[in-house]
């Protein structure tokens, strides 16, 4: 008796140990995922934050006939290769706009060359010892500073890292998202309304429903193949254009919008529909006057989430050619454009070290934008959601 009590308590002990083990395993799994999230953001922020500040040098610019033809001659020998070539290129234009500058010398804070930027931020760089000495002297004289990197937000892409910015990519993203919305929102909502309120229960309707679920699971890169083969090669939409990207992403966002809109429409109780029909409204009047307005917050939330997804999407856009080098803002929907994720991709494959922190900074901008969109979606849902 005593013996068997002993074994059973030992078995119980074992079972409790197994229980504890399993529970800690579960906690470990969750912690692992969260730990990744923390390291992930810590890495990106530590790599990216320095790009929001840009080294500048206080330099005398002499505006002469010579410097108009050869911008490099506008600065002294000592600092000639320490300041950005990209900035000096503007000298002739400055002279053209302000002719009174001719034959004067002015002091400016000028964007420093990428290696100088790395040096002043205490990172590995390729500066020669002599150049480092010059920089040390300039530092002592207070002629160097790290200022907020406005160029990053106000310039387009460039091969010169210190003046490369995300403006053209941001504008491209706005174009593409606008077209995506323009296409997928009406079609998506109309499809959802049809399936929820009008469709007869027959084979064709079932086929559409199965099909929409399938579309949501098709890898995004295949939408790129569709865009390339149909929109670009058959319909003649210009390659790399915002239009090609917007249409492709529109098709990709369509299932998301349809599925969320259907859920929102289904959440409207039948009593509303019956009441509307009861006072003599037609089915369409019932939908447009009652069901759609009531489900609108849900539709909006789903649309914003779909757009956020589209905004981070890269693969199909690479296929339709939206990774071109775009220094200027595209003037229309049919001109070559690029988007923020594609810009991140092109920068990340650059071999220049200075682009690494810019890539991380662009990623931070993208993540902040996505976060804002998602917050907006959550906020709208909380604010307007009704419990029936």
């Amino acid at each position, binding site marked *: 008796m005593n013996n068997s009590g002993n074994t059973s308590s030992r078995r119980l002990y074992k079972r409790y140990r197994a229980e504890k083990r399993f529970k800690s395993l579960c906690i470990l799994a969750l912690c692992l995922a969260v730990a990744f999230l923390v390291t992930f953001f810590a890495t990106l922020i530590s790599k990216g934050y320095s790009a929001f500040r840009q080294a500048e040098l206080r330099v005398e610019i002499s505006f002469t006939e010579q410097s108009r033809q050869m911008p490099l001659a506008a600065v002294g020998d000592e600092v000639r290769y320490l300041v950005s070539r990209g900035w000096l290129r503007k000298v002739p234009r400055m002279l053209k706009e302000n002719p009174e500058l001719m034959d004067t010398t002015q002091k400016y804070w000028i964007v420093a060359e990428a290696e100088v930027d790395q040096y002043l931020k205490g990172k590995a760089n390729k500066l020669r010892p002599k150049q480092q000495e010059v920089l040390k002297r300039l530092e002592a004289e207070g002629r160097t500073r790290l200022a907020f990197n406005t160029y990053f937000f106000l310039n387009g892409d460039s091969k010169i890292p210190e003046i490369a910015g995300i403006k053209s990519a941001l504008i491209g993203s706005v174009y593409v998202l606008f077209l995506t919305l323009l296409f997928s929102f009406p079609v998506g909502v109309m499809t959802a309304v049809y399936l929820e309120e009008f469709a007869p229960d027959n084979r064709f309707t079932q086929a559409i429903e199965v099909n929409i679920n399938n579309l949501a699971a098709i*890898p995004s890169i295949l939408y790129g*193949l569709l865009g390339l*083969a149909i929109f670009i090669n058959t319909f003649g939409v210009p390659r790399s254009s915002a239009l090609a990207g917007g249409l492709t992403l529109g098709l990709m966002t369509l299932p998301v919008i349809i599925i969320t809109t259907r859920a929102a429409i289904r959440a409207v109780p039948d009593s509303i529909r019956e009441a509307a029909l009861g006072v003599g409204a037609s089915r369409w009047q019932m939908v447009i006057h009652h069901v759609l307005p009531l489900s609108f917050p849900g539709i909006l939330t789903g649309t914003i989430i779909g757009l956020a997804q589209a905004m981070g999407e*890269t*693969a199909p856009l690479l296929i339709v050619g939206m990774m071109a080098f775009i220094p200027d803002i595209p003037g229309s929907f049919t001109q070559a454009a690029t988007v923020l994720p594609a810009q991140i991709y092109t920068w*990340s494959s650059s071999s220049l070290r200075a682009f690494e922190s810019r890539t991380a900074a662009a990623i931070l901008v993208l993540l902040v934008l996505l976060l804002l969109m998602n917050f907006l979606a959550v906020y709208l849902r909380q604010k307007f959601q009704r419990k029936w």
Partner: protein
Amino acid sequence: MSTQYLILFFFCGLVPLAVMAYFLGRRKGRIFKEEGRLSFLSQIDQFGWYALTWMILPALGVFVLAFLLHILGIISVPAVILLFGALTVALAGLAQALHSISPGLRARQKLEKVIYFFLFLAAVISILTTLGIVLSVIFEAIKFFQVVSVWEFISGTQWSPDTAFLQGAERAGEEAAKPQFGAVPIFAGTFMITFIAMCVAIPVGLLSAIYMSEYAGDKVRAVAKPLLEILAGIPTVVYGFFAAITVSPLVVRLAESVGLEADYTNALAPGLVMGIMIIPFISSLSDDVIRAIPQSLREGSYALGLTTSETIKQVLLPAALPGIVSAFLLAVSRALGETMIVVMAAGLRPNLTMNPLEGMTTVTVRIVDALTGDLAFDSLETLSAFALGLTLLLITLILNLISTIVIRKFKQKYE
């Protein structure tokens, strides 16, 4: 005149006409009302909308028809003629509509028929999208398979398309190697990376789902669930950057410290990061399935004296298995089609190996590589991208189908 301007002029012409049509229709309705002849069948506004619809539809029809003819290459109608033709048809439609407006006209019913038609058309677009994807991939793939046999494609172990463009340029001599399109190494790489991803995602995703649904209190759940969902919201290009810049060098250093050699384009780094990307996918689907199991099963198990972990392992997991299997299949199909992470962190060179520390390539990498270069659209390498795309599409669809069947067949019905 470019298409852009044509479309612009078309709509600029149509908008004032549409406004005019609306007010003309309404005016007729108002006259009926003043005369007291308006029946209950239609309201004044509906006459306006009726006139507007009957004007715009024929014009749009003409426009779409001309566009289709142009695309199919049958005939290209000159832009000016098209513009005036469409606007004339619009005016004719308007005249006909105004003529047919009478007090007894059932304008609302007719309008709603048009609306139903457009709703239906929208629903058809989703079918057309699938059709578009399937056809665009199949057509190009057929061109590819006319040159390269299907058997060679699915069983060959050599993928060296580099000489394909030389042949296109007619520079290939006898000595130049024939391009080879054996896709086995590419699929091997794809499955290897997917396998690594699953080794990360399944245990972590499933165990976190179990913790959140069975152990965690409401507070922990309210924090942990959105945190995991952040993982799903991060764009894949960001994961790719992370894999290439941080994880790959880490893997190489770790491998060196234990005396192994690893490439910077090793399969392990993209695999691990992809696994993390898929965690929320598995965890949220499994969480839903586990929470859908009725409480009575848990209570019955506890009443028999089982501990929580025994309940999970012996009661809940078997009950949730179909749902978990289908989540697993969907996750696999997502991993197979994932592009940016592997494009940025995995290799370009097809490599048939079992060693995850070596560089290998995937289907999606080859597609992107073939289509973002400067190759002509009908070069063999470009076409090979569509053949790879077709295989990817087939695998994805089959996985989806199996997952649907698993759910439907084995789903427990609880009363």
